């Protein structure tokens, strides 16, 4: 199964627009640490709620950021779908190497028994 490419996962030119503004880059960096409500995103930059919501709209349009409601809050998160694919690949190898390191131990034991015969 092919992993979706950058092109299909992200919405093309909007991506460049999304990261062209320093405030939006700062917001992305904050979201990289975990999801945040809008109120927390505005305060470090001294932004008004309306200005922040304009920036968040650009980020949402790019597909980089998603939004959900939780009571009166809107929660934003970074969408890293292409990387989730990579993580699965890494997990797969991790289990494989655990098994192989054990298999190597057995192999080393067996081969030295063979030598002493």
């Amino acid at each position, binding site marked *: 199964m092919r992993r979706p490419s950058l092109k299909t996962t992200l919405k093309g030119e909007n991506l460049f627009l999304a990261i062209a503004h320093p405030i939006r880059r700062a917001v992305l960096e904050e979201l990289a640490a975990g999801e945040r409500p809008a109120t927390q995103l505005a305060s470090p930059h001294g932004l008004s709620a309306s200005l922040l919501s304009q920036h968040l709209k650009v980020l949402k349009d790019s597909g980089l950021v998603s939004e959900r409601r939780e009571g009166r809050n809107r929660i934003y998160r970074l969408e890293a779908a292409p990387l989730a694919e990579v993580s699965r690949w*890494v997990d797969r190898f*991790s289990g494989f190497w655990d098994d192989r*390191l054990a298999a*190597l131990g057995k192999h*080393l034991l067996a*081969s030295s028994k063979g030598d002493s015969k």
Partner: protein
Amino acid sequence: MKPEMKKEAYYAKPVTEVWKALTDSKNLNEWLMQGEFKAKAGEKFRWKKLHGDRAPEGEFECRVQEVRERELLSFQLKHVQTGDTSIVTWSLRGDEDGTWLKIEQEFLTDDMLKPHPNVISMALYRQRDAEKAWVALLLALLTDHLEQLIWAKAA
């Protein structure tokens, strides 16, 4: 460059024996994979199958990168069907009773490598830093894009 995954094991065997198990085709066929191997930088092999229930399926192209006798062995593993590529490094440290063996694996992502080879290092990341690396990559892509615009204007 930060390794993606790291594991360590101790074997009560001399380093020469462990090195042999890691580098000799016949030994490797018994515990790791089905295919050829020779510990010489630049050599390429086809691994038809990795052993074990939890092995990633499919064939792998293995290309030896660095060999330091009884100390270090690194090779690139490329999944033939998907093109997914990683670099595996074995490091060995022997003491009088046995051998510490460390394995590290760095994952490169195909999609990120193709359009922008100059940001290869950013596509190498640890799982927990994946999202940060993602942002870093986007910033690098933006920089490239802006540079291209500037050159286009200047031309």
